[in-house]
């Protein structure tokens, strides 16, 4: 890691907007949504105050992981166009502030989850933060092209935490929800990394398109979309969800596989020709939102 400028005595205190940006609010919105869906899909609903606090803790935990990720990766972010304007690489905040903010937020979210919900939910939240920061950010990201395959597990925790916060125990359905996000993450990120490959190459991040090439990445995207689709539909035949969810999951997943097939067929080597990749990336976000919304709708109105 190259060292970044540390704030001088003349430096301004960090603006709260930059502290907010450190939490990766856009990623947080997906995390909050899947966590909420996990909670709403559970057979028991906690009191409103406890449910709200648990979701808040999931959001704060995700924000803490995002802040610690940006603290550690400030040197990488400075090398990539997509991330160069973040508070740390742009020099709007010193690294120590980001570190203290991230650790404080992580500790606060876990303790509050323990107080409001239960020990298991707090433990899972702590594991998800540590997994994202230590396993993905520190250990895997700069070392292997499998970084997001294994690291993707961190993003798969929220629906499980939401479920456990509501019920106090694990069950087959949240584990399938975990599997869906785990299998969704590689095609989602590889689609993005195809058209920002030059950024990752410049920063020497071993993303699959950089290490294995475009064709291999497109093949992997398609191959991962198949078990992902199977996992998405699985709750229906396993009688863990109803017809409403099953039909929605089948239609949404078919769309995903078709789009992954279009990516597989694409031969473009420059971002300008990567429309299928850009479309798959956009669709993958909508897919996850829609899938979890269908699960909640099935539980509440389709039963």
């Amino acid at each position, binding site marked *: 890691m190259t060292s970044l400028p540390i704030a001088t005595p003349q430096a301004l*205190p960090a*603006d709260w907007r930059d502290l907010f940006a450190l939490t990766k609010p856009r990623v947080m919105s997906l995390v909050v949504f899947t966590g909420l869906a996990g909670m709403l899909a559970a057979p028991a609903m906690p009191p409103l*105050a406890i449910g709200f606090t648990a979701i808040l803790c999931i959001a704060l935990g995700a924000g803490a992981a995002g802040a610690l990720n940006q603290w550690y990766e400030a040197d990488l972010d400075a090398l990539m166009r997509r991330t160069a304007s973040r508070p740390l690489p742009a020099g709007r905040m010193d690294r120590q502030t980001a570190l203290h903010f991230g650790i404080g937020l992580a500790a606060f979210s876990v303790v509050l989850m323990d107080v*409001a919900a239960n020990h298991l939910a707090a433990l899972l939240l702590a594991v998800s933060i540590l997994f994202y920061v230590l396993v993905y950010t520190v250990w895997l990201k700069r070392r292997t092209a499998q970084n997001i395959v294994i690291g993707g597990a961190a993003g798969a925790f929220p629906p499980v935490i939401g479920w456990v916060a509501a019920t106090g125990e694990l069950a087959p359905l949240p584990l399938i929800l975990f599997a869906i996000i785990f299998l969704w993450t590689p095609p989602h990120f590889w689609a993005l990394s195809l058209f920002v490959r030059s950024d990752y190459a410049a920063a020497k991040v071993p993303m699959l398109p950089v290490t294995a090439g475009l064709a291999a990445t497109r093949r992997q995207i398609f191959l991962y979309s198949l078990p992902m689709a199977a996992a998405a539909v699985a709750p229906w035949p396993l009688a863990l969800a109803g017809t409403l969810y099953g039909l929605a999951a089948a239609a949404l997943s078919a769309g995903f596989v078709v789009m992954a097939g279009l990516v597989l067929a694409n031969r473009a080597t420059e971002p300008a020709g990567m429309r299928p990749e850009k479309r798959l990336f956009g669709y993958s976000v909508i897919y996850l939102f829609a899938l979890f919304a269908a699960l909640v709708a099935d539980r509440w109105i389709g039963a």
Partner: protein
Amino acid sequence: MTEHEQEVLRRQRERSRLLAWLLGGFVILLFLVTVAKIGLNR
């Protein structure tokens, strides 16, 4: 007071105000969670 010092003061005030609101919200949240937990244990 220089322009720089004024900006430092402005940011400090802004953060202090935000922190006060967040602490107030936290107290209310903790109160509501406590009430909910008491209700669950009845």
